[in-house]
């Protein structure tokens, strides 16, 4: 546990060693604001809620989070420091989870810095703060899902650009798998079970359920399972590469 904490701290600090973290947070907040006020037309809606704020999160995360997760493993491989990390007496799970939690904490920080929106909406009206809290939690879980997928794919390559691109594609597929765009392809010939399964893999579906204000245990279980699954897959890939020698 101590080792896990040590790794989280090192990884988290490494985000702030370059201006990258600040650039990332500023651009993320700007994009968030633009999406909410311009695309979401928050002021025109005349409603004291944050629906138009949260509804863009899956699409913003789609590009922002792979930018964080791409470096998790690819950078270590490129830099050679993976050899150092994997020859220290630390269990692999502590490294995989430590890196992941640091990335999640960083995304969480970026998300937390959107708090002025929350203050504004409370200032302007009487929103349902319970829904907003649930939505923030849902947004964090969504980020967690994207980051876990990205961590796994970053472990596959030493090239950060490749890691970024395949992560965006994979996250996109997981996001839209519940949308008519995808389901219509299967509808009509595939058994309903398959369609339901496919739809249930959609991050969007589960995210929307939570931002509706209801934290259903099934949605939480979905995210936790997805994250756990991809992190275990990360461990398997990193371990497999030990045998290959890449």
């Amino acid at each position, binding site marked *: 546990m*101590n*080792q896990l904490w*040590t*790794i989280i701290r*090192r990884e988290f*600090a*490494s985000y702030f*060693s*370059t201006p990258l973290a600040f650039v990332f947070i500023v651009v993320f907040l700007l994009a968030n604001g633009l999406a909410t006020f311009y695309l979401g037309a928050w002021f025109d809606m005349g409603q004291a809620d944050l629906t138009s704020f949260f509804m863009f999160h899956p699409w913003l995360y789609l590009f922002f989070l792979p930018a964080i997760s791409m470096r998790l493993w690819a950078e270590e491989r490129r*830099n*050679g*420091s993976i*050899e*150092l990390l*994997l*020859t*220290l*007496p*630390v*269990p692999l799970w502590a490294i995989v989870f430590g890196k992941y939690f640091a990335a999640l904490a960083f995304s969480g920080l970026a998300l937390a810095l959107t708090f002025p929106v929350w203050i504004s909406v409370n200032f302007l009206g009487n929103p349902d703060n319970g829904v907003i809290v649930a939505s923030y939690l849902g947004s964090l879980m969504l980020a967690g899902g994207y980051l876990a997928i990205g961590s796994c794919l970053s472990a596959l390559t030493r090239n950060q650009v490749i890691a970024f691109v395949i992560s965006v594609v994979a996250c996109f597929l997981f996001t839209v798998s519940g949308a008519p765009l995808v389901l219509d392809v299967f509808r009509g010939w595939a058994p309903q079970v398959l369609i339901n399964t496919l739809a249930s893999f959609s991050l969007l579906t589960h995210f929307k359920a939570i931002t509706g204000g209801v934290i259903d245990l099934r949605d939480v279980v979905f995210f936790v399972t997805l994250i756990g699954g991809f992190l275990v897959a990360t461990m398997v890939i990193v371990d497999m590469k*030990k*045998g*290959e*020698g890449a």
Partner: protein
Amino acid sequence: MIEVENLVKKFGDFTAVNNLSFVVESGQVMGFLGPNGAGKSTTMKMITGFLRPTAGTARIAGIDICEHPMAAQTRLGYLPEGAPAWPDMTPRQFLDFITRIRGFDKAAARQAIVRAVGMTELHGVLDQPIDTLSKGYRRRVGLAQAIVHDPDILVMDEPTDGLDPNQKFQVRQAIEEMAAHKAIIISTHILEEVDAICSHAMIIDRGEIVAEGTPSALAARSRFFGAVSVTLDTAHLADAEQALAGLANTRLEALTRGVETTISVFATTQQRDAAALLAEVQELMSGQSWTVRAVALETGRLDDVFGTLTRKPRPAGGGSAEARS
């Protein structure tokens, strides 16, 4: 003690390390020699648990690295090739991280870091990002990381690569200081380094051990071993060759480097005593009008042995077959 047992590593069809076995006792410094791509780094990566062997294993202080990697890695210090570190950290943060990961408490960590920093002379750069350090300092940061927990076993992949002569000297000195109580493996392709710090040396080529022994025993395999070398001004080469031609049962070989030439006198019969040959050559030279810069009895040349054993393709019926037996 490091015990390597029948270590094999295959990458697809390519065999990088082929059935390697050796033992390094505490107090020994094993020099790992070989051309690029011979399998030095791959072997070290397997010993330290970064790569999984295709077959065979290594034991660190009696602990199997494949079965109990963490227990073995606790006893191990490793400087990977190129001395990687996290460029955004300062040496102080880096060493602090390593000691924390290795489970030191605060006081012990501080002590260990002071010791390692002292041995690698990092005082001046402790708070500069590793990114901004020179190659020499970066290498020393890597070294400090490898020795900070005072491990019984130390594996270093080219610890002096890219250092200037002064830094090389310092690193070698640091290794010598630690050598008495540790089992150390270093890889290098600098042959003088083997003479300078290694108690044992091993030449590997294409994943196999082609020669092994003390550096002087290895050097003695050189064809120069037992020859007498005369160094003189190139201007007098012809005179000297004429004079030396008078020796019975010898063969001459001259190597010119600018104004200086070295003539090696080889005995062509087995019975000839090297000391006697030296005396004869000295006597012959003393009567000449021109000066001889040096006369020496060759103890063998490691670079010559290295070249003979690792040149591709191996010379048929040459030293390599003999060396491998």
